[in-house]
């Protein structure tokens, strides 16, 4: 399998693949995002308990899911970068980290905005909320470390290593936070949720989740393209590319 995958790790090929995929992914992301949010915000019935304010779920849940999804894909890329020394995987770590951090911020913000009318408070020290906040700190650490070195290459490698350390730690943090919370106070406030969700609300939610995933992939392609150009700027193929672009433009 590795022999088959290896040619795709070549920066030039990867650049072309990302360029090829980006418009499709972005179009699909925008389409599903529009479909999911419009359906979710305008055409689903209101919740019998929460009224209209539950509709923020169509942004909150997808961003929360993909904030974790982005971290796992970042950690996988980091592991590939460390084990097989694939440079493109290193750049992928730097490409995904800010997107994941923004998703985490969106999840925290929409969560707070949802919590205010429902729980009567912007923030509770609930296990899930705390884990998400710590996830944000881990993202910020990776981003800060990758930008801290004079040598870009060292920064990429160091942040890849940190991402792997973080993913080993993440379950430990998650369970310890959960344990800490249940010790101090029962999660009485969070039990407001209904055990299951009605199909009329589920479908737009699933579409929104798909949309955020596509969006993440599209943005990753775009950022990876930029990272490849930045890191390979002295290579002949990039020079050729810029020269031909300058001629056309």
């Amino acid at each position, binding site marked *: 399998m590795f022999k088959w995958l290896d040619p795709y790790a070549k920066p030039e090929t990867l650049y072309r693949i990302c360029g090829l995929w980006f418009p499709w992914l972005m179009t699909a992301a925008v389409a599903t995002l529009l479909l999911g949010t419009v359906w979710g915000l305008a055409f689903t019935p209101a919740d019998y308990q929460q009224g209209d304010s539950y509709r923020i779920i169509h942004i909150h849940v997808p961003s929360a899911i993909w904030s974790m999804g982005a971290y796992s894909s970042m950690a996988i890329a980091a592991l590939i970068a460390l084990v097989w020394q694939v440079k493109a995987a290193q750049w992928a770590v730097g490409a995904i980290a800010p997107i994941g951090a923004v998703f985490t911020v969106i999840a925290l913000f929409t969560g707070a905005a949802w919590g205010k009318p429902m729980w009567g408070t912007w923030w509770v020290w609930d296990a899930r909320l705390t884990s998400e906040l710590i996830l944000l*700190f881990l993202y910020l*650490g990776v981003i800060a470390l990758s930008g801290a070195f004079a040598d870009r290459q060292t920064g990429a490698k*160091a942040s890849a290593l940190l991402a792997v350390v973080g993913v080993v730690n993440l379950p430990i943090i998650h369970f310890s936070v959960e344990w800490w919370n249940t010790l101090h106070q029962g999660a009485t406030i969070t039990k407001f949720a209904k055990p299951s969700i009605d199909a009329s609300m589920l479908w737009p939610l699933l579409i929104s989740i798909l949309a955020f995933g596509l969006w993440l992939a599209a943005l990753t392609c775009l950022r990876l393209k930029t990272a490849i150009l930045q890191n390979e700027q002295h290579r002949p193929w990039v020079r050729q590319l810029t020269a031909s672009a300058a001629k056309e433009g």
Partner: protein
Amino acid sequence: MVMFKAAFVREWRLLARQKADWLNPLMFFLIVLTLFPLGIGAKPNLLAEIAPGIIWIAALLSVLLGAERLFKDDFRQGVLEQLVAAEEPMLAYVLAKIVSSWCSTALPLLLISPLIALLLGLDTAAWLAVLLTLLLGTPLLNLLAALGAALTLSADKGGILLALLILPLYIPLLIFASAAVDQASLGLDYSGQLAVLSAMLCLALALVPLAVLKALKLNVG
């Protein structure tokens, strides 16, 4: 083993000559502990209630304070480059570094823990819990601090970055250690927390030195 012994003896010699390296974190720890009663109020009940958290936050900050210098001098003077180029296993050096940093920053905290218990009004049972959690938890602090120091070795603004990277990783330790002291001061059994702390320590002992080694190598280049 020869390498470990040589590196360890060298560290001790350095520590004996640069007393600030282990005295400053200790003083920092004591001063932070003094600030809490001044800032929050010196009611004995309140102090005993928040003592576990305070002790542990002060401990992890003081270990962090000493961490930045861990590999700095060896990096600047080219010792690390020689070690990377040498045939001897570098892991022994990393382990010696971590063990000696524990001896210099965490062992003094253990030794003055009766004093801390006195200052914060903890009884003997709670003090014993403080001692045991410090014994199991501080090696973990040193391991992770070494990782942070190795990662940020050649970074431009190492010090504050190190804290940003490592503090989130300390959260499980903080939770379990202060919970153990909390339980002890209520007269409850806290062997479960100690078991979790030991498990985390074993995991970290197995994995972190390798990560430190990797980080050192990529910083040396």
